[in-house]
């Protein structure tokens, strides 16, 4: 005969019911959901592989095509610009994949199912954010590895190197919040293609692609002030030398700005995607 009664659970529910949204349960519940998402990604090796192999190829390509010219102009290896740029670009593209998965789960009804569970209301969204952080760290480390093979070296000490690793996370999270917000309000194909186009623009008009003064004068301000350039410059400063503080502040301002602008629409959109 089936045991429909689970002893431990009945005992648990004797607890005061009003604490679904208590902080005490937020952490374990978020971790369980994060684990689910990471398992999902890990089980899809093609996507993961492509998401890494291609930025690596792009990194190599850029160095092949432009490496010589850039190092002649700037005095140091082009890698200090292209490695950060590819780490950031991989973070962007990874979040597009994640957002598409989110839309898929909404269609399947899995989001609704999870919403109806007695879990903290924020645990779902929070678990996605944490999974994203993990992903960004992994892709950054892999690209860094390839960069090191090509000649990238940290020359500013341990603290600066750790800070270097944090920048893609900040940038990636801000970017992911933007993509997720768009994903929650639009269709799959549109999202993917729009993100790709913005990705191309961000990459070719950044200081990781070419030094600022190589661009036509009229576009130099745009190139210099866009968020990706600031992030790259911060990382450049943290690895080989150069200003750190001002690009870092600018990066943070961009990141916080984007995240803040997206926060409310994203929370709202997630709720709307889970409910009906």
């Amino acid at each position, binding site marked *: 005969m089936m045991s429909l009664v689970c002893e431990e*659970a*009945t005992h648990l*529910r004797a607890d005061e019911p009003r604490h*679904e949204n208590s902080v005490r349960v937020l952490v374990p*519940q978020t971790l369980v959901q994060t*684990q*689910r998402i990471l398992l999902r990604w890990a089980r899809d090796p093609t996507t993961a592989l492509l998401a890494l192999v291609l930025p690596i190829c792009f990194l190599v390509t850029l160095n092949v095509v432009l490496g010589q010219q850039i190092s002649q102009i700037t005095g140091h290896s082009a890698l200090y610009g292209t490695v950060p740029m590819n780490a950031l670009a991989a973070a962007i593209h990874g979040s597009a994949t994640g957002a598409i998965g989110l839309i898929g789960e909404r269609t399947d009804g*899995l989001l609704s199912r999870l919403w109806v569970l*007695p879990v903290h209301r924020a645990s779902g969204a929070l678990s996605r954010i944490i999974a994203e952080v993990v992903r960004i760290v992994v892709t950054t480390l892999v690209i860094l590895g390839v960069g090191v093979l090509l000649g990238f070296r940290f020359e500013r000490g341990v603290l600066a190197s750790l800070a270097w690793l944090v920048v893609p996370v900040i940038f990636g999270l801000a970017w992911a919040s933007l993509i997720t917000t768009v994903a929650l309000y639009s269709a799959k194909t549109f999202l993917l293609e729009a993100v790709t186009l913005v990705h191309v623009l961000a990459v070719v008009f950044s200081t990781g692609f070419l030094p600022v003064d190589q661009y036509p004068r009229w576009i130099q301000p745009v190139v210099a002030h866009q968020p990706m350039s600031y992030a790259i410059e911060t990382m450049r400063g943290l690895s080989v030398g150069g200003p750190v503080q001002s690009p870092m502040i600018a990066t943070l301002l961009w990141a916080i700005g984007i995240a803040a602008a997206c926060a409310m629409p994203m929370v709202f959109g997630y709720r709307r995607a889970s409910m009906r």
Partner: protein
Amino acid sequence: MSNSDKAVVVDRIRKTFGEVVALDDISFDIGRGEVIGLLGPNGAGKTTIVDILSTLSRPDRGRATVAGYDVVSEPAGVRRSIMLTGQHTAIDDMLTGYENLVMFGRLFGLSKSAARARASELIGEFDLVDAGNRRVGTYSGGMRRRIDIACGLVVQPQVAFLDEPTTGLDPRSRQGIWDLVARFKSAGIATLLTTQYLEEADELSDRIIVIDHGSVIAEGTADELKARTGGSFCEIVPRHLKDLPAIAAALGSLLPEKNRAALTSESERIALPAPRGANTLVETVWRLAAANIEVADVGLRRPSLDDVFLALTEDSSASRAPVTEVMQ
């Protein structure tokens, strides 16, 4: 504060989507251990009710409580007490059956070890031992449904919402779900079962609620509803169609005027009400024999829930015409 003897109370709920009125001041209740069949065509509002009761949606007006918790002001309590399974199974395809169960267990508040133990238990109960470590994406339809329901049972719910749970399943799997509902009943779980399958509602429910266009058009046990369409009737199928008028004449007073009037040149059979059940049948046969008319078939029929349903939804749409002949 809460109606303690009813598991679910729905009180004049109204829900509109733009111009469409999905639920129109609908009210009903479900007692503990009761199985309610919610019957209605597509678009009747069945899924909307389930959405509201499971906190996925909010009513525009009216109140509802589930397990004593108000769905609008105490959704957390509701979520702790229910189990929801829908037409589209909502399980993570990329995880194995076992991992899904553990995840849901943990999210329901079980400790890691308890969740694992419970998962193994449920895998055994639901006959998924061989498939437990395979990804759910590889499961067949019946297996998916089983794991979907299992995930809702990691912790005992007080109320179960089964939204068309056997749609698309083979007969064996369907029987399995039916057995499950019976066990819910004996465990004291209140079940709201929405279905399009009339035999399912007939078989499983203690009470049936028929809804159409967002309102309750009938409520009662299966037998009560069947009686509403006039009860049993005798049906005569002549061997030769040209004998129909002769049969009608032979039946005399047994055949009410309106049935007689309903006969057309297209009719293939005659139905007459059987207020005395089998005795009416005997009388019918006797009269037919006396008139020496050959018949292909004569029998006592009870209306099926099909007839009930058609009759009720016919009633609720335009005409108020009484249902006479429902077999054609």
